[in-house]
């Protein structure tokens, strides 16, 4: 829909009245991209990402965004084109999801290997088959071993803010990795909410000097091999390859503190409406006996359920993962310090472990805690299914039961007809 704005905002803060708007998650992502002033975007529309690239094309056509747009013939080309752009020093962006992400996988993996600071929104969509164009985290989860940073958003405001921050994160010299901003297809992509629009000049100040290709460049005056063929088991081939992988892992590790500092800087500049937990959010955890864990847009309904359970005397808290890759092991360890039972809700499936992917990652953190915490995997919200306050009351009830009995080896399939 068209963007409309308020003349005066109902606020009592000392800062100048923020520009209030109502917009979709997809539109917020596009506006965030525009604020970050990329040089080049390449697009191929796919549901539920389509309105995002339509909005970008409109921003460029209307002269509100000064970027080249490449309407490529498919997602594989989208990402390949952007790699060329990044190598030439451009700040680059695209968005995709589901089958589009699958078609993009070969250049997707190469992007992180070449340490190109691309930003790509994944408007998350469930995996096929059976056919589904609906929301779910399966697409983003499926590529989690490809060396990209992945951050999941809870609200439309968080989509906008995280999209801007993603560019500075990707280009940070200690990181130099591509970043996925993940926003839930359907509930966030097409859901509209009230947001506060950051001021462009203040965003420019936050972003600082553009510095995309200091480490690798297509520059005739500095000839260099890019993406070299390594030598197999001969020569120094393996060492070269290992150097790349270790470097990627180091960038991932560094990203944890860069993400944390960046979120703090962002909130300090733009105010409390723009404050988001960078890695792990702890919600009503201080005296919690047990906790539920969430990811993405499901979190709002889960928080409302926690509040209701608290009002009824339950000592339950909530842990939200924002940054999934790199996995925030220490921050999650801290969140789990007093928790005696845990229920983890995933919007996708880990077929290997018969559980949710976030649950499986969390098991590693529980091991590091050095004490037994009964934990249960819940899988819900697949293919656009709704995760409501009622759903989370069930999750809370079944997690509380773990204080008394052992968890099941089977996941609890929410939204299932048993």
């Amino acid at each position, binding site marked *: *829909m*068209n963007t409309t704005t*308020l003349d005066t905002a109902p606020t009592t803060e000392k800062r100048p009245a923020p520009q209030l708007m109502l917009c979709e998650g997809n539109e917020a992502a596009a506006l965030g991209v525009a604020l970050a002033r990329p040089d080049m975007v390449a697009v191929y529309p796919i549901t539920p990402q389509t309105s995002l690239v339509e909005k970008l094309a409109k921003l460029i056509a209307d002269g509100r965004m000064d970027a080249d747009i490449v309407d490529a013939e498919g997602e594989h080309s989208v990402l390949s084109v952007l790699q060329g752009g990044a190598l030439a020093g451009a700040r680059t962006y695209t968005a995709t999801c589901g089958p589009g992400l699958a078609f993009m996988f070969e250049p997707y993996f190469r992007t992180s290997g070449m340490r190109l600071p691309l930003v790509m929104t994944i408007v998350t969509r469930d995996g096929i088959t059976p056919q589904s164009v609906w929301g779910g985290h399966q697409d983003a989860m499926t590529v989690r071993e490809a060396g990209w940073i992945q951050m999941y958003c809870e*609200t439309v405001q968080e989509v906008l803010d995280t999209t801007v921050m993603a560019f500075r994160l990707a280009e940070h010299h200690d990181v130099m990795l591509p970043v996925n901003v993940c926003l839930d297809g359907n509930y966030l992509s*097409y859901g*509209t*909410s009230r947001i506060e629009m950051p001021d462009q000049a203040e965003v420019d100040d936050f972003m600082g000097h553009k510095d995309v290709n200091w480490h690798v460049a297509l520059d005739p005056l500095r000839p260099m091999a890019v993406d070299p063929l390594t030598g197999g088991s001969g020569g120094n081939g393996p060492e070269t390859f290992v150097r790349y992988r270790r470097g990627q892992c180091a960038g991932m590790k560094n990203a944890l503190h860069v993400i944390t500092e960046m979120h703090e800087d962002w909130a300090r500049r733009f105010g409390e409406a723009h404050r988001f937990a960078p890695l792990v959010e702890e919600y009503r955890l201080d005296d919690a006996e047990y906790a539920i864990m969430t990811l993405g847009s499901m979190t709002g*309904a889960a928080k409302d359920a926690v509040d209701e359970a608290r009002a009824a005397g339950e000592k339950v808290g909530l842990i939200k993962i924002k940054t999934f890759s790199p996995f925030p092991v220490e921050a999650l360890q801290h969140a789990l310090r007093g928790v005696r039972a845990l229920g983890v809700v995933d919007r996708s499936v880990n077929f290997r472990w018969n559980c949710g992917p976030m649950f499986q990652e969390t098991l590693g953190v529980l091991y590091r805690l050095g004490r037994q915490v009964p934990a249960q995997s819940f899988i819900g919200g697949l293919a656009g299914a709704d995760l*409501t*306050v009622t759903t989370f009351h069930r999750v809370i009830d079944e997690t509380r039961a773990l204080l008394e009995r052992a968890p099941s080896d089977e996941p609890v399939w929410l939204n299932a007809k048993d």
Partner: protein
Amino acid sequence: MYEVRIHGRGGQGAVLAAQLLATALVFDGKYAVSIPAFGFERRGAPVVSFIRASEQPIRQLTNIYAPDCIVCVDPALARTVNIFAGLKPGGTLVQATSRPLAEIDVPDSVGTVGLCDAVRIATEIFGRPITNTLMLGAFARSTGQVSLEALKKVIEQSDFRDAGLRQNLDALERGYAETTVHTLERRITA
């Protein structure tokens, strides 16, 4: 929190109406969220969209199952879809219809009914039965949850241009003016 479910058919603008209403609520100083229900929407098929409004930030990004108000922008839809599902006791129905209240099948959960002959008015204004902006006027009149001024401002700032803008402002005002609101005293409210 005030929750609204809009029923329509693909092409009648129920999803756009939800976005316009949510924007108007923000203009009135409230927090608002709109969520379209997801399906293979196509022209003529039943569709729904949802709006939440509150003085406080809204965290739930979910569909609505127990609305305070149902807006039905299509006169014949109630024959094929249970538009009243989950309506809170004493809730409001805002219905596009040419018929009087006595000829409308209204369950006991409904406490207030707003009726607007939206298809006839839309045909006069647009030459086509596009009822969404009309029914936003009918909603404002029936519930008082949003100001007519805010709705006008949203339409003025939207993509509507020239004749389309004048027509939609006309539709909004006539929807507001030509809606009859009935309070059903004998209804069960518990």
